[in-house]
């Protein structure tokens, strides 16, 4: 690690800014909440992008989000385990579904994979909606435990009901996810994924088992998406099928990642940080009906004018993989 380049500096500055701004704007709790949710959706976007690195565009990541949310909710509701315990366990439910997905969609590529992922959401959604004995069906589950209060270094942080503390928690988890994402791109495995993405035949010639590597990416992606879902369940304190199995949740990570730059480490995060607060804080008061049109517009413009995402406009690091 020789000299620090400009993009690393920019990254460090960005992280510092994210950590420090709530201390300056102490009273604007509304912003803390919005930025907290931004971090949550950024985690989901990073999760989605890990799978996209292998060349697979998924239109059904809400299935993983919802499964993670419900599994964590059920564990919490029936056994009263702490969310710190149920969230990592609950996300495993998403991975189980990912296994079925890998087996079933083995031979699918490109568009058909996307369509299959879109259709596949119906399966967990309908099962959860109709399995009344286990999931309470359409009624959903209320009264979930909030995120706990922890004492870190002598400071008591109520992650459940203190929005500012919650923001820092979500920021922290997002940074961890970002680290994971970075590893997925700048590593030998990341290089493997890139080969699969660019040219599967060449990958096969190099002795890479595309299906296996893609499945690995999916496992990771689904687990992270499940974590995001579980976090959501415990932040809101309730789950309902229509709330967590939702097309909007499939589309958001796609828009954030493509807009931000799917091949860039910071791409999905950048997309989330720019678009979500923009929609919530600026567009929403102006256009109470239909402000989500922003995402549609953004994705169309992105594909036409800057398919590599806006992160491509940033100075590229000297060594690229």
């Amino acid at each position, binding site marked *: 690690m020789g000299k620090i380049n400009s993009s690393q500096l920019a990254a460090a500055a960005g992280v510092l800014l994210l950590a420090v701004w709530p201390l300056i704007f102490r*009273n*604007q*709790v*509304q912003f803390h*909440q*919005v930025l907290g*949710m931004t971090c949550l959706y950024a985690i989901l976007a990073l999760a989605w992008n890990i799978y996209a690195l292998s060349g697979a565009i998924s239109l059904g990541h809400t299935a993983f989000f919802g499964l993670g949310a419900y599994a964590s909710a059920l564990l919490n509701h029936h056994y009263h385990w702490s969310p710190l315990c149920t969230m990592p366990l609950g996300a495993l439910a998403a991975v189980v579904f990912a296994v079925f997905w890998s087996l079933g969609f083995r031979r699918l590529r490109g568009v058909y994979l996307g369509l299959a992922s879109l259709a596949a959401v119906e399966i967990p959604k309908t099962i959860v*909606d*109709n399995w009344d004995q286990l999931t309470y*069906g*359409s*009624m*959903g589950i*209320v*009264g979930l435990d909030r995120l706990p209060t922890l004492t870190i270094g002598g400071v008591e942080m109520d992650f459940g*009901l203190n*929005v500012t503390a919650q923001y820092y928690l979500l920021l922290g988890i997002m940074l961890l996810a970002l680290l994971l994402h970075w590893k997925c791109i700048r590593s030998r495995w990341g290089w493997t994924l890139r080969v699969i993405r660019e040219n599967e035949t060449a990958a096969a010639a190099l002795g890479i088992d595309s299906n296996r590597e893609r499945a690995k990416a999916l496992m990771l992606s689904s687990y992270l998406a499940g974590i995001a879902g579980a976090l959501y369940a415990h*932040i*809101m*304190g*309730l789950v*309902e*099928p*229509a*709330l967590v199995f939702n097309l909007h949740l499939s589309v958001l990570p796609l828009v954030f990642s493509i807009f931000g730059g799917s091949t860039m480490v910071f791409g999905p995060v950048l997309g989330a940080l720019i678009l979500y607060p923009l929609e*919530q804080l600026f567009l*929403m008061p102006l256009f*109470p*009906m*239909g*402000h989500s049109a922003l995402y549609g517009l953004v994705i169309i413009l992105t594909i036409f004018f800057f398919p590599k995402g806006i992160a491509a406009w940033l100075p590229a690091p000297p060594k690229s993989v």
Partner: protein
Amino acid sequence: MKPNISLAGVWLRKIACLLALFILGTTLPLAAAEKIRLGEIDPLSGHLAKPGQEIHQGILYAVEEANARGGVAGRPVELISRDDQSKPEVAVNQAQDLIFRQKVTGLVGGYVDSLVGPISQQAARNRVPYVASASLQQSIAGNKNPYFFRVSRLEGVVEPLCRFLTQTLKTRRVAILHAATPGSSEFSDSVQAHLRQAGSEVVLEDKFRPGSPDFSVFLLKLPPARVEALISGGFYADNLILVRQLRERPLGLKAFIAPWGVAYQSFIDEVGPASEGLFGACAWDPGITRPGTEKASQAFVAGFRKKFRKEPNTTTMHGYTSARALLAAIEQVLQGAGQLTGEAVSRALAHLDLQLPMERLAFDAHGDPRYYQQVIVQIQKQRLVVVYPPERARGRVDFSLAAR
């Protein structure tokens, strides 16, 4: 003559000063009086926007009505309305902002429980009273939350409906069709439990996702099962389709009853003559109000029509009732010369007893409305006629019309 004029002038000046002082004396306190700030969170956009807007208008009307009377205990009321976009995370967001930044005295509004629940949690945590306009589920009021109150609840719909079916219609075999939403599902469960207790049998039950266009296959199953009455937990558009398909293929039912969407003049207008004989449930309607509250109800309807240029309906009235409750509690606290704190207002709410057009409003220990009971109506000659309970009935059940 000069001394007379100057004397008159002095007197005139004195009178003018006194007059000025008098005017200042009455207006200055009002101008200097601190406004009472109320926060309102409703789905004003998103898929729940229609009922959300109606609740909003009811609340707005109540606040303006209070201000027209000189405010609450002389202090004007300011309503800060926020939109939760039909999403829970935005509801939490807005609640936080209203509580911390706007420092509201109380919260009001809300449509479904996925939106009401998170707001009630924030209210409890920060000791701000919250009167929800429309919340049905049991579990919401389950945990003891001394800051949460609601003006409606599921039992107020289910109990009259089940009693009507067993006592008046005397049906033993019913079928329930409900939507895959939390409120509708809980409604179905509750109805089944009540009917079973009363000795009736629910022979068929089915659930559909909102947006389903066709119920004809489900309806086909009713005659072989000898179903006497069909209960629909669907909403306006679902009932439109159901009624149309029942007309296309009559099944020999004794009755069709739907608590949501039917007891509206707009439904009657849309469906036309095919709506004759259908049963619905109603909390309040411009023609249907609690005995003794006719004047207040008429005044409300007239005033609302004037301001919004449209008819108020039961949803509007729920918003109005919840706002009236909050305002009344605040008034009580101020008149008792107490401090306007969250605890004081919540205590006042807990002891409230108001005679309102929709209900006699008093809350029990869980914040549930003690006396909220809807009435059963039948559409006769294109009007809503109350047929149950007997003490509120304005007409008799027309069994031949009801048959489908």
